């Protein structure tokens, strides 16, 4: 990786979106987003359906015309260019393999258009098929392959052209869970191997976390937060990100001092001063379920009653009713003979102030 990636001081931006907007009649699908995607990244656009992530991808690919804003590939402004003049290739959600062409001709399609012929063409097509682990299928037709195989062919057909950026539009959506997990790791391996910038659209936060090294979370056409998977999980910037990426306990509170908030029922809780970022008044503080311990032992303490417990092998999950609201807790079963607390038992929860983050209270809460 280090050999391929340029030093941070001279990072190359492969895709730059500048104030990009897309309107369909009255609906704003993408609302004024700006974004830099650096070279060699595995980049994920994550969000619920209808958040504008696919539309953004289609605009980068040239399949949708932006209503406003610019798109740059490297230094070049490609905003008005048709897709066939852009140095990007796409793996479509439906794969869109040409049913009338053999696997070889499907993969060779882009190369032929760019004038590659003869042995060079053959070598590159076969190399691409080998990269996706499907050597020997070149004479088949797409419909003779399984969904997973078609997906790999779609990947080979795009990668064989060595595009500047590879766009993936929910390519794993149609696969079953096991195959999807396998392809996630496979895609990551391939991306490391070829060193091309991948922009991957998904609504599955786990998929994004598994594969991407940079994630942009989108909601209602806007960017909620951009960052590494760790950033998004440990320091979510908004209530939306906090609950969309993993599970969060969000408790309403009022800022009562530097690094100090008061929960609605009066408990004082310490939080890192940085997370408040100068906020005053109402905030929502968040703690991840696995960062809460049963029993006192950490600085922040909250008493409650077990409402429900569920033993799921690797961990036990609790819903605990507290005066500040219901709290979800996840306890690793890392010792033999762990027994779950039963519903109705009273207990004390505690957590490290460093594990706490603060966001604007979600809309619609009092």
């Amino acid at each position: 990786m280090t050999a391929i990636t340029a030093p941070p001081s001279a990072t190359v931006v492969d895709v730059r979106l500048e104030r990009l907007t897309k309107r369909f009649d009255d609906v704003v699908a993408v609302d004024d987003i700006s974004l830099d995607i650096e070279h060699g990244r595995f980049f994920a656009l994550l969000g619920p359906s209808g958040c504008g992530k696919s539309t953004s991808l289609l605009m980068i690919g040239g399949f949708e015309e932006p209503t406003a804003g610019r798109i740059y590939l490297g230094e070049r402004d490609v905003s008005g260019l048709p897709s066939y003049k852009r140095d990007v290739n796409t793996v479509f959600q439906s794969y869109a393999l040409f049913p009338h062409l053999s696997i070889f001709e499907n993969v060779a399609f882009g190369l032929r258009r760019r004038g590659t012929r003869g042995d060079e063409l053959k070598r590159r097509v076969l190399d691409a098929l080998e990269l996706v682990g499907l050597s020997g299928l070149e004479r088949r037709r797409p419909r003779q392959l399984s969904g997973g195989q078609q997906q790999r062919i779609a990947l080979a057909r795009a990668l064989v052209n060595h595009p500047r950026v590879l766009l993936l539009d929910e390519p794993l959506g149609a696969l079953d869970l096991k195959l999807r997990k396998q392809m996630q790791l496979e895609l990551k391996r391939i991306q490391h191997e070829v060193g091309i910038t991948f922009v991957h659209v998904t609504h599955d936060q786990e998929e994004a976390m598994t594969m991407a090294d940079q994630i942009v979370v989108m909601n209602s056409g806007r960017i909620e937060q951009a960052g590494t998977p760790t950033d998004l999980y440990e320091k979510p910037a908004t209530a939306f990100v906090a609950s969309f990426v993993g599970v969060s306990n969000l408790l309403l509170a009022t800022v009562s001092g530097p690094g100090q908030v008061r929960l609605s029922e009066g408990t004082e809780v310490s939080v890192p001063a940085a997370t408040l970022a100068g906020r005053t008044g109402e905030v929502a503080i968040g703690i991840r379920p696995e960062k809460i311990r049963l029993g006192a032992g950490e600085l922040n303490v909250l008493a409650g009653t077990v409402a429900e417990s569920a033993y799921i092998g690797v961990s036990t999950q609790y819903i605990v009713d507290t005066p500040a609201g219901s709290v979800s807790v996840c306890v690793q079963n890392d010792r033999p003979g762990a027994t779950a607390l039963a519903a109705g038992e009273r207990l004390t929860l505690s957590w490290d102030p460093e594990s706490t983050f603060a966001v604007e209270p979600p809309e619609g809460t009092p």
Partner: protein
Amino acid sequence: MAAVGHSGRLAGVVRGRRRRLAPYLLLAPGMAWLVVFFIVPMYYLATTSLQHGSLEIGYTFSWAWSNYADAITTYHTQFLRSLEYAGIATAIALVVSYPLAYWIAFRGGRWKNLFLLLVIAPFFVTYLIRTLAWETILADGGPVVGILRDIHVLGPDGRLLATSSAVIAGITYNFLPFMVLPLYVSLEQIDARLLDAAHDLYASRPWSFLRVTLPLSLPGVFAGTLLTFIPATGDFINAQLLGTPQQYMIGNVIQSKFLQLTDYPQAAALSFVLMAAILVAVLAYTRLLGTERLTG
């Protein structure tokens, strides 16, 4: 308990037998239709084609293969003309229909069904009347001839009626919907994402059309050309109404043999030769276009 089991098994046997019979029962009406209206007439026609005699003295079966030899030697001009007219009309219909079907399939939007209705609207008027209308349109005193004379495309006494062009135009017009509909169906089925994929792989619009749209629409081209060519070859109305005996096709010969000259054996032999010729042409065409490519 035993009784229930017994009757249950019996019901099962009956059900199983019914299930095995079901496909044949479903086939039966179609098969009966084919036997009564295809196999029987074909057999009758085949025996007729090998008879000799006349309406007055009656026809007798005599393995008269000479009917076939005569059919070819006497009427090969009309045979060739039929194939030529039908071939040209099919080609023109394809060239006219493809853009039309393409436009309806890809640009028709919510008006698609209306456009398709317009394509088949002429069928609401009988074939004969439609062709008679063309006789009026192409008539010597008609507007088309007048305009063509004015702009010197036709000479001062040039005509459209009673020419090969008029007959071919008539055939093209009458069979156009048979070309448009299968083309439309095959084009309409093409997944727009495939064209996106082609553009994504650097194919310009014309190239995408040639490498993706056109090959995927070949089943429609195949079906459309056959549906046009086969009935057009046997047509006689257009040649009769828009042409002269100089434009007569084999259909005209068969028709007059059957209905005016009552030379049934000769007419039957002509029909079989026509059928054979079409069969050979279709087989050659199928081989040329390749069935493997069609099934994609």
